[in-house]
């Protein structure tokens, strides 16, 4: 259970990105977070693994208070939270395998990793993760030589290396074409169904949220505007979330 209690974030320039967010997310749920750009989706996801420090409130995961964790504890917490990004955030000059192995850094002895030594068992684990997302044959290619969809799958494989219980996906398909989007979403669905990983995924397209998620949370100006089943979002709700002039665009 992930509990978000009264979480707020005010940036140093005074912009209030999150305004008193309260959410409870049971384990194993696939949650889609929707909302306009600037509604606080990315900030909320980053507050959960403290890439951004919230200015108020608490985030409790199981029996751990994430918001109170000191640096060294935070690293142990982050090990169990995978994250994938809109821009994939791969090291483009490194090989696919190295990128995937990076996901294991929290577990590897720091002395080993500074000497650039990877235990063979970890290498096998990385190959298995790559096989799972279907690009094992690209292991020794440079990350930059892969297509967008493949790069995002490398991102998923990297997160898999963490053996995560929770996966944060920050608009994972926003830079991909519709067909590739579905393939990436299906991998996330697979992790959710097979491994029981809780998934928090921010999305631009409502149709994707409808197709893959168990629950939709809509943010507007840093507040929760809607929280419920995907099927409950009708035209009126849609306009509440996206504004009066919005028209829903389908992605198939």
């Amino acid at each position: 259970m992930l509990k978000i209690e009264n979480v707020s974030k005010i940036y140093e320039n005074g912009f209030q990105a999150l305004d008193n967010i309260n959410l409870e997310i049971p384990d194993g749920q696939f949650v889609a977070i929707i909302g306009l750009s600037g509604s606080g989706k990315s900030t909320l996801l980053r507050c959960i693994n403290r890439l951004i420090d919230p200015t108020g409130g608490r985030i409790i995961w199981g029996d751990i208070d994430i918001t109170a964790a000191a640096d060294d504890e935070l690293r142990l917490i982050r090990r169990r939270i995978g994250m994938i990004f809109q821009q994939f955030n791969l090291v483009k000059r490194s090989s696919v395998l190295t990128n995937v192995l990076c996901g294991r850094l929290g577990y590897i002895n720091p002395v080993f990793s500074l000497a650039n030594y990877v235990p063979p068992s970890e290498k096998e684990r990385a190959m298995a993760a790559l096989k799972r997302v279907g690009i094992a044959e690209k292991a020794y290619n440079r990350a930059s030589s892969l297509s967008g969809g493949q790069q995002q799958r490398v991102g998923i494989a990297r997160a898999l290396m963490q053996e995560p219980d929770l996966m944060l996906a920050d608009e994972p398909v926003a830079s991909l074409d519709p067909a590739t989007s579905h393939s990436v979403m299906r991998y996330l669905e697979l992790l959710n169904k097979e491994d029981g990983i809780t998934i928090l995924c921010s999305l631009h397209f409502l149709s994707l949220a409808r197709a893959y998620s168990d629950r939709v949370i809509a943010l507007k100006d840093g507040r929760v505007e809607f929280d419920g089943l995907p099927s409950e979002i009708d035209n009126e709700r849609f306009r509440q979330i996206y504004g009066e002039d919005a028209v829903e665009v389908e992605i198939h």
Partner: protein
Amino acid sequence: MIKTDSRSILRRIVILIGVLIGFVIIAYGWTVTQINLDRPQEPVRQQNVTNALRELLSPNVFTQDYEIRSNSTSILLDCPADGTVPEAPATPDDGTPYIVVTPTCASSGDTVTVSGYNFYPETLARLNWIGSDGERRIRQVAGSRDNNFVIRDDGTFVAEIEVPRIRGSSGETHTIEIQDATPVGAVRFSDTTALVMEKMVETIFLALIATMISILPSAILSFFAAHNLMRPVRMPLGSLLIAFALLPIGWWLGTLVLGAIGTFAIGVGSGQLFNGSASTLFIALGAVVATRRRSIQPESFGLRIRGVLMTALIAVIVVAALGLLGGVGILIGTLWRDGLPGYISTFVGSLGELIQLLILPISGITGAFVFATAGISLTRPALKAIDMPIGHILGAVLGVICGALLLAFSATIGMQAAWLGLLTPIIAAAMGGAVLPGIYNRLLPSRPAKGSFKTLLRLIGAVALFTITFSVLKVERAIVIGALPPTNAAFAIGEMVIYEYVFKAMTIGAIVGGISAGFAGTRAQFPVGEVMYNTTRTILNALRSIEPLIMGLVFVIWVGIGPFAGVLALTLHSIASLGKLYSEQIENIDNGPIEALLSTGANRLQTIMYAVVPQVIPPYIAFTMYRWDINVRMSTIIGFVGGGGVGFLLQQQINLLRYREAGVAVLAIAIVVSILDYASASIRERVT
């Protein structure tokens, strides 16, 4: 009809005024730089510059040996009255040079024609008249302005000379001699060229060594000078203050304990090569095994203690291994003397000695680091549990200690030179800048100071603290008179004497540190990264603004004239310059991977290793090449201040007005610089 826009007219006026101001500035500059159009037109100067340029452009690169040969023929002074003409001597037909004079008799003042055959083409020659008295008189050839004339390109010449007036030698046979300079042996490089080449090699290696040495320090510094890496680094004030207060204790214990271990290890290593290297290997393996740990649960205090002991163990192992390496190095240094093994042995031995020199400071730094991290780790749970009022009291206490330590340190530096005394007021001002906004925010927590009001508060605090510290420490006395602070002891702790000057600074530091940390409390997040970034940047910028030539002057005093001084000067400047360039490359990288790696639970060092390093390697190579290129240029002139290399030679030749020799050096510099310029540009193009 064109509409006149008043704003556009105003704009034009502004532009016009700008141009006028620019004109005045340039006009003033013209006078200041003493630009004078008459001087270059003075004939003497023109003649001088023409000569100098001519010699510079005729560099003395090649040389060939010459042999002065002489051939002669005879001539009768005054033809006999009977009209008989002496017979010309027989001419050889074996290709050896010979001369013929026609007619074979002549009177003083007559003009005779001398022709020669089989001479070395296009060399200089001169004609001598050797009278019956045996005296040699140079005869100028008609049409030539000096004593020499040039043999034709077919090896012949025809020259007319006037018969000299030699009293009392009528009727006697005189000799006409030709002396010509015939090249012998192959064309070869002149001695100057050999010297210049030798110095050029020295120059190139001077630049190479300076660049190589500077890579590691500047790469390390560049991470501290990169804003994107340092900005997010924050630390609770309590942890920071505890760590800072432990630094001197750690330093002291480090030099004592670790220093002894390191010195002992050097002794072992330099005594026995095999044992030394074997135990180095063993210790390195031990380090890896010792740090092998599956999981950390910092919540448990026992495990925290274990972590601290582990850090201390690693520190001991690292210092011991370094000491052994140094010792083995010193031993290797004594193995060979000559040839390639000799160079390597000297180099490795030198590195060993360097480790020996540095083992105490390294031990101190390591000890300080161990103590600081131990302090942070062990006090973290306690600091987290502390409530607000106690947190402020503890903050005040720690603030007093740390403020006193910081200003004591800066005041000790300030006692070394008059203007270094400014350091203490500046640091005090930086601390003072934090006091007023801190107090204000604590008194009015609902309306925290923001924007320009906060800046104003900071400014007031900083100026006030600067002024107070400046007058208390009487820094103006030091600056105006150049006098160092008096060294009156206030009191002594054991052997360490605390001077009054330092004590005054400590008092100020204690007061300011106590107030600001007390108001902030131990839980406040302190921007450690920002402070380190600013400090590193300031030092790098200050170092970069001092030209290597000036640094060279100082190093020549320290290590004497020669390339070593040049290496030190260029290294220091390269560290500053490369540090800045490298850090800008770090700031240009894609920050996405850093975020991604931090989110996987990697620590900061791992993040840098895997997300930053792969991205900056190509630009680092490019900028290192670029710096080598610059260093070669610099090293060609560092010799002007005694820093070795070709510049030293160039300066000597110019001072001796030997422009042909100077020309060789100039030519060599031009060739080497342009080759390197091209090479570095093409390598840079390839890696980026």
